């Protein structure tokens, strides 16, 4: 499965250069892959920790919310939560992890009012059940960590993609391109040697002929 080339010395030099380049690329990519995996593992661990924590808190908050939901008519519940007190302004920047551009979130809470009125509770107390309070409190506390989780999770996803790509490249170099080049090189040098030997025998033959005539 060698490359079809003209077995010339020029081609040989060209291919030698390519092989060298491929080997260097292979080494670099392998380093990149290792580093990516290291980064990936760090992030994955962080992600797992965050996710487990948040899921625990959220499932608690959802359970409380469900109870609040069970003792309130849905329209009254929705009216209570219809107008949020807080606005979150999210800015997305890029951060470079091994030339993978992962999003970096920064957020500012825009508050509608000052003082104790800037509470997280957008509803009055007459029609709502007290069971709603604690679930809203948990949900609001968990929000900033939720964003952190989103950031980490996206980075992990992008890194995973990049690792896959890099690994495929490394493998392509290692198992396809480099052996192919090496084989072609071998083929050319053998062909050249063959030619040389052919020329040599031809010369010797001619020498014999010339000598016989003398």
């Amino acid at each position, binding site marked *: 499965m060698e490359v079809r080339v003209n077995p010339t010395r020029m081609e040989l030099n060209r291919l030698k250069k390519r092989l060298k380049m491929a080997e260097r690329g292979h080494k670099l990519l392998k380093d990149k892959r290792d580093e990516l995996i290291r980064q990936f593992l760090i992030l994955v661990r962080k992600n797992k920790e965050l996710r487990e924590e948040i899921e625990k808190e959220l499932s608690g908050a959802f359970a409380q919310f469900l109870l609040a939901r069970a003792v309130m008519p849905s329209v009254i519940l929705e009216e209570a939560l*219809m107008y949020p007190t807080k606005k979150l302004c999210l800015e997305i920047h890029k951060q470079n992890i091994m030339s993978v551009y992962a999003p970096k979130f920064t957020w500012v809470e825009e508050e509608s009012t000052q003082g104790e009125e800037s509470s997280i509770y957008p509803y009055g107390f007459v029609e709502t059940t007290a069971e709603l*309070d604690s679930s809203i409190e948990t949900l609001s506390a968990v929000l900033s960590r939720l964003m952190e989780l989103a950031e980490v999770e996206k980075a992990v996803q992008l890194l995973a993609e990049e690792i896959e790509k890099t690994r495929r490249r490394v493998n392509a170099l290692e198992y396809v391109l480099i052996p192919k080049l090496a084989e072609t090189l071998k083929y050319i040098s053998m062909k050249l040697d063959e030619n040389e030997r052919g020329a040599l025998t031809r010369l010797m033959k001619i020498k014999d002929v010339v000598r016989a005539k003398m």
Partner: protein
Amino acid sequence: MVISDQTVYAYAVGRVRALETRLLDRGRLERMIEAATADEALKVLAESDYAGAVGELADLYDFEQLLAAELKNVFKTVLRISPAPDQIAILALRYDVHNLKVLFKEKYLGLKSDLLIDAGTLDHENLQYAVNEDDFRDLPEQLRKASEKISEEFLLNRNPQMIDIAFDQALYSRLLAETARLKSEFLTGLFTRQIDLINLKSLIRVKRMRFDRDFLRKVLLLGGRLTPERFILLVDEPLEALITSLAMTDYADLIAEGVRDWIERGSAARLEKLSDDFISAYLKRSKWTPFGPEPLIGYLWAKEMEINNIRLILVGKINKLPAEAIRERLRDGYL
């Protein structure tokens, strides 16, 4: 309209007695709780007066519509048979207030929703017009004042909680003003008790949210049997002080049990159930008044509790809540 001759209630009371027998009893609710799935709970419900409505239900998850329609019908029926509909109409006022809250929030958010409740007394279109055009002339006085206050202040501080608080205050001052006008001691008793229980709950909630007494002062409803000052004094005290401080009132038992449970388990469920049961007990005392609006009002309340119980069970069943969690929130029947 003040009715001196209470015998005009003979028909209405008779009618309500007949309707009362069709309320769901504890046994049926218990069977719904014991049902394995939400569908089966619904089947139990279909054996009762709800048969027709359940039959028309396309999807289990639409049960809220069923309950909303039932609420509307109940109010319509009682309004129709009552010789003094204005006594009944004020009970529907909280739905008008709910609608006003929704419309104001819709206006400030610039969106439409489908959260209006049909059981109210004021027409949705008129309310919509009033809110959109800032023309509150046709609203009852207290609601008009609250609306004016909101339309002046909201754009300055953008605090949605203020909308709810202003309207809640307006609702109860309206209710008290109306009952005073109607000279109905029974209704005054009902609303003042409701105010006390709401204030009590607000106090604990404000304490839990760690807000100060100024905030509590804004939230507390006026006109209850206990003055707001009694609650305000308790803001900085531990919750246990509440139990002793209110031990000499009618609410002693419910506070002792409900608040203790709240302290121990951090859940308001017990106190809220006991509060509703307290109101039920109050209404039950006048249940056997032969002529008068009391049985009608009692029936409306009973029906509201029944609807809440059905919602609780269905939500619980759909989400596979443990039967115990449902049972401890189930309100007592009126029967």
